[in-house]
């Protein structure tokens, strides 16, 4: 019984962390139509920044700064924002698919750095001894307390982003997504709005990475593999891009599917073929992604349309 509860607590904590990153992606993709192909890279920056600032000094890599955890989380977000700003500034004036290329490249480059920049990342061995909140509680209570923390952070990010997309700025952002030229004609600075949305959206990804590092207490390059980007996309597309509640729902649903398929693979596939078992899970995520895009692009709960009550029905349904 306690085992099941512990597992559910662990599941909900990881799902909440993913949901935070998915909310960030929703601002970038769902509300402003910008393609981020390197979500995992931004999460890795947050995780490694948090790790570098809180882990004890080791002779293999820098450390021993012992920053307070809250300050380290803020710094992790700041580091993510800086990288997102650099990528955004370079690509904002180019074809929209070049942002996809640049983000894909930055995630690959961060992966290479994590493996090779041993002085900061510890290379393949990773960074251990990262500060964990509630570390002096017994394991079960640590799990519960961390879940409460993750849930509070998730709620805060959700409320902030909801406030943001309902503001006049959020409305203008959707206008930019729907018709760039019309928005520009109405005096909106399209490039600036896109860049702002991209950078704000990257911050929760860095925060999610930092929370993950704080939860596990250890990071390595193998925690941030490209498959994670696909998982987070699947969460957003399944939940419904353009809807923050959908993004959170999608994170829990897809993480449940992923975990269950993982358990199934362990039960069904012989142990010497476990690598192939991971391949089956990856195929499932790919099929899920493509099938949702083709058959139900709105996801479980798509974007709610906000149109003026003065508009007649035929006019308000004319979207895309």
């Amino acid at each position, binding site marked *: 019984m306690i085992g099941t509860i512990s597992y559910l607590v662990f599941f909900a904590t990881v799902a909440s962390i993913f949901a935070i990153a998915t909310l960030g992606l929703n601002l970038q993709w769902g509300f402003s139509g910008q393609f981020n192909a390197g979500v995992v890279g931004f999460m890795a920056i947050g995780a490694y920044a948090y790790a570098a600032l809180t882990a004890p000094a080791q002779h293999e890599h820098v450390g021993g700064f012992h920053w307070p955890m809250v300050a380290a989380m803020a710094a992790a977000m700041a580091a993510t924002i800086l990288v997102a700003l650099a990528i955004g500034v370079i690509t904002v004036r*180019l074809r929209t698919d070049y942002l996809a290329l640049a983000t894909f490249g930055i995630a690959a480059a961060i992966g290479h750095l994590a493996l090779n920049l041993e002085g900061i990342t510890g290379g393949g061995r990773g960074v251990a001894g990262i500060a964990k909140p509630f570390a002096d509680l017994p394991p079960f209570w640590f799990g519960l307390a961390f879940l409460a923390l993750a849930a509070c952070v998730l709620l805060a990010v959700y409320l902030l982003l909801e406030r943001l997309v309902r503001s006049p700025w959020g409305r203008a952002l959707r206008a930019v997504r729907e018709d760039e030229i019309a928005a520009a004609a109405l005096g909106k600075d399209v490039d600036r709005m896109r860049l702002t949305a991209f950078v704000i959206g990257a911050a929760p990804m860095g925060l999610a990475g930092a929370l993950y590092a704080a939860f596990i207490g250890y990071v390595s390059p193998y925690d941030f593999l490209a498959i994670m980007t696909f998982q987070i996309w699947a969460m957003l597309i399944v939940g419904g891009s353009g809807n923050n509640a959908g993004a959170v729902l999608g994170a829990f649903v897809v993480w449940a599917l992923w975990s269950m398929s993982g358990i199934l693979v362990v039960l069904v596939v012989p142990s010497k073929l476990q*690598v192939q078992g991971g391949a089956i899970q990856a195929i499932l995520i*790919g*099929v899920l992604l493509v099938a949702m895009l083709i058959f139900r692009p709105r996801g479980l709960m798509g974007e709610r349309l906000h149109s003026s009550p003065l508009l007649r029905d035929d006019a308000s349904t004319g979207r895309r």
Partner: protein
Amino acid sequence: MIPQLVVDGLLTGAVIALGAIGITLTLAILRFANFGYAEFLTVGGYAALSAVLAYGGTGAPLGPFSFGGFIAVALAVGLLATAVVALVSDTVVFRPLRRRGAGPLVLIFASFGLALVLRHIVLLVYGTQPEYYSREIQIAVLLPGGVRVMPDQILVLGVTVVALMMLWWLLRRTRVGLAMRAVAENTALAQACAIDPEAAIRWTWIVSGALGALAGTLFGLTVQLRPEMGANLLLPLFTAAVLGGVGSIPGAVIGGLLVGVAENLSVLVLPTSYKATVPFLIMLACFLLRPKGLFGK
């Protein structure tokens, strides 16, 4: 040292150039960045491997090369299988999305999903171990300037040149090529001239799939086959296409050669472990300095 690095770079670059042509054709005619494209290299390479395994090797080595005559049959199998996979991908994934009027970014999304599926099917079937068409030993040829080249690598260069000439003939001298170029230029105008865009799109998948399979087989011949080889080549391929200028085939070739040479020369100034980051740096530089590429319109 430097001449050797340049020659090695040109040989890597030839393979990148073939794939970059496929990407630039896709960007120009299908009008989206197909991130699943690199998996065609993997599919083609492994399809050729299946033929080699079924035959029990490539036959007795031909002259100085490491492989026998059967490799030509295996290559044909790879090209055909990949063209079929490309067509099926279009029919199952991209055509329904095009019909719905989905934007290019939705197509990119779908192409990533497709890449995930294709790569892991290869992994599931063939496992994670690197594979080779042949394990025969070959003796390096000494060129002037102290440069050593494997006979297989010279053949790769030759095959690339022949493939480029055939592609030029297809695009410039056949109706199919004319239709593809017309759709790349202006779909509506092409339609007004009784060109079926869907047919041109199908041919684009076939040609780019076959080019990918050729690149994948040549890569397998000179390096090795791994399920993630396509995924690792994705960034160099796109860098070459962007650097050359979207839609420009000579651009893709020069871009591919430049990326190959730059990657190899980078070991002079950077630790070897950062070699794989070089294409990304070139891409960023290109975005900053000349986003339309060297030969872009």
